[in-house]
């Protein structure tokens, strides 16, 4: 009884034995709940749908996406930003919280980081998908070639590509380095092909204190390197818009606005996956309600920041000198897309207030729904940046108030979720999605702390 209440308000039970942690976590690699396979199959199916649509579009031409002269970007770029955004939470949890020594992050940062990596990969897909001539994509790479040409270094799109690739590679590195000790554990417990597999990954980790020392330092270095990178990436994505001529796009406050939005949707996504993993891998002991509670509070805070910056954006337009930009803003609020726009504002700024109730934060199913809705809101935000602006730009003759993406476009967008889910599920099955050694540290420190307290 006592221990139960203990478990309720503590981030993690302090009487967890090392061996139990290993057993529980390694179990996730062996025999997850059946839900896992259901989800995986679902993700895979959705991915196949997207793949089909893309194949069709690749062969027929982008026209099948229903895009047209004013609206040349449609959902692809919107969803691209969305996925870039998703990627930020991982860094937030693992790197930032790591540096500020918030140890409650430890059980959940691993999958958050995986999320970073995979959502970046998904985002990268959209860059390719929305190209008219995907097969010529290498023109954008600055490499010495027989044409003796360079890409255009002025183009924010190029900065984008560079930033994203840097971010992707370093976050993969971060993820990998952070997991080396766990790979070693897997190696020690595994048999058959898995032994060699984890053996290779573990890079011969022995756990000697020299290794630990180097490990800690390098981990810290990458973390410090990653944080500014994460911020810069989304700022650069924002500059795709901020640096253009479109009314309602060239707004100075876009970069921070985008970063906030990114962290926001990231946190929401973490909550979703948190709940899913907790269920399918029986991680009740590690992904505990108090941690969820903390994450939820963090989400709420970021939601407020985002709301603030959102208002800033409207204000800058409203008090700015560009009549057309103002017109576009009004168009969003009153025009054909107003439904989505209001939905976006409601989901993004009002809904988070439900998170101030402890009851809600403690209710898994409620949190599941809310987190999904928050992300829907964030996705709508991206779409509201792209489409209404195109549909009502400077030039009235080409206004198109009735643009709506074709099924092919939707198919590809949904497919991307399938692709992400597939990779993520695969990852959780192959790599411990809870960092064993860090949970052990956590438990150890907590114990220690209490001992000190009791002695004092």
């Amino acid at each position, binding site marked *: 009884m006592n221990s139960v209440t203990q478990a309720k308000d503590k981030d993690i039970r302090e009487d967890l034995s090392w061996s139990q942690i290993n057993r529980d976590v390694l179990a996730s690699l062996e025999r997850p709940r059946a839900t896992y396979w259901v989800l995986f199959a679902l993700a895979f199916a959705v991915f196949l749908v997207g793949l089909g649509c893309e194949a069709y579009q690749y062969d027929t031409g*982008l026209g099948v996406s229903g895009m*047209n*002269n004013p609206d040349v970007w449609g959902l692809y770029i919107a969803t691209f930003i969305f996925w870039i955004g998703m990627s930020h939470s991982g860094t937030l949890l693992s790197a930032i919280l790591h540096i500020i020594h918030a140890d409650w992050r430890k059980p959940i940062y691993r999958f958050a980081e995986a999320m970073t990596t995979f959502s970046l990969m998904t985002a990268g897909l959209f860059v390719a998908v929305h190209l008219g001539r995907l097969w010529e994509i290498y*023109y954008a790479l600055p490499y010495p070639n027989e044409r003796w040409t*360079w890409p255009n270094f*002025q183009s924010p*799109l190029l900065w984008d590509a560079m930033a994203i690739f840097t971010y992707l590679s370093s976050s993969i590195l971060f993820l990998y380095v952070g997991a080396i000790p766990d790979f070693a554990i897997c190696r020690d417990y595994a048999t058959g092909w898995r032994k060699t597999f984890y053996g290779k990954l573990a890079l011969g980790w022995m756990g000697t204190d020299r290794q630990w020392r180097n490990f800690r330092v390098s981990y810290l270095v990458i973390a410090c390197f990653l944080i500014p990178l994460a911020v810069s990436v989304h700022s650069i994505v924002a500059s795709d818009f901020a640096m*253009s001529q479109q009314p309602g796009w060239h707004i100075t406050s876009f970069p921070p606005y985008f970063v906030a939005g990114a962290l926001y949707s990231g946190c929401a996504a973490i909550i979703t996956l948190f709940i899913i993993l907790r269920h399918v891998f029986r991680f009740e002991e590690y992904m505990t309600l108090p941690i969820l509670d903390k994450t939820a509070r963090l989400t709420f805070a970021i939601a407020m920041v985002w709301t603030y910056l959102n208002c800033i954006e409207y204000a800058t337009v409203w008090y700015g000198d560009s009549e057309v930009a103002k017109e576009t803003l009004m168009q969003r609020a009153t025009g054909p897309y107003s439904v989505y726009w209001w939905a976006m504002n409601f989901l993004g700024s009002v809904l988070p207030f439900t998170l101030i109730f402890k009851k809600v934060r403690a209710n898994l199913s409620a949190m599941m729904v809310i987190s999904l809705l928050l992300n829907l809101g964030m996705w709508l935000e991206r779409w509201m940046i792209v489409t209404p602006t195109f549909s009502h730009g400077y*030039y009235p003759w080409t206004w198109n108030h009735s643009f709506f993406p074709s099924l092919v476009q939707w198919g590809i967008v949904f497919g991307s979720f399938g692709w992400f889910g597939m990779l993520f599920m695969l990852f959780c099955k192959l790599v411990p999605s809870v960092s064993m050694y860090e949970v052990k540290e956590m438990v150890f420190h907590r114990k220690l702390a209490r001992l000190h307290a009791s002695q004092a």
Partner: protein
Amino acid sequence: MSLDATLNDWTKLRQTHPLPGSHPDLKWAMAIDLDACTGCNACVVACYAENNLPVVGKEKFAAGQAMHWMRIERYWNEADENAPEQGAQFLPMMCQQCEAAPCETVCPVGATNHTNDGLNSQVYNRCIGSRYCSANCPYKVRYFNWYNYPEQVKAWPEPLPMQLNPDLTVRTKGVMEKCTFCVQRLTDAKNNARTEGRPIRDGEVTTACAQACPTSAITFGNLSDAHSQVAQKWRLQRVELDKDKQLKDIDGSHPGLRGYRIFEDLRPYPSVMYLERVRDTQA
């Protein structure tokens, strides 16, 4: 190789307005007299004929995927929208060949550049179809090949392909295209002039639209040649290429001036000057 050139000239790359006298020899430009323009569409068809534009058909037109590089826009007065006693207003709109073109800076592969004779070039075979240029074009005069018109859509059933102009390509799926001021004609003219070792004569070459226009509303020529017709028109209207505010706008002292450029306040410095439509209010 010219990465160093790029880096050396970084400041120049970030330049946001044209330098005076940047085209000492050649600067192609237009003057379009909206009082003469009757909206008869001759220029539009001429453009189709000259530039291998695909006919996309009703369905794709409805989807907003038309490929007319030049379009005639028809506006009614706000005042008499229901009884247009002043008639309609027509505006031929094509790529304005901006001096500080918003489309140029954003292209990831540098497929659209500024040429030395002041054109905004579009290199079809370099384009990868990111459509960023179109997104950034305030006039929305860039047209994207949403489909493979020559092969898959079959926009030119036999024997129509025989009409295609061999001086320029038929663009394929996934590339951006736009009005080029009939650059294939200009290149030939420059070539002949060079062979004969002389500067290009005014009126020696013109665009398909200008050539067809039954009322000669479109004047095309070399703005750097002070005696060319187009240069005279610009001068007379006191419109200057590298200004974003013309005399006309600055003070009311010149009510008679008709010359203006569209969206000048966005500072793209277009190469097309329009002359205001004139209406007799006594009639």
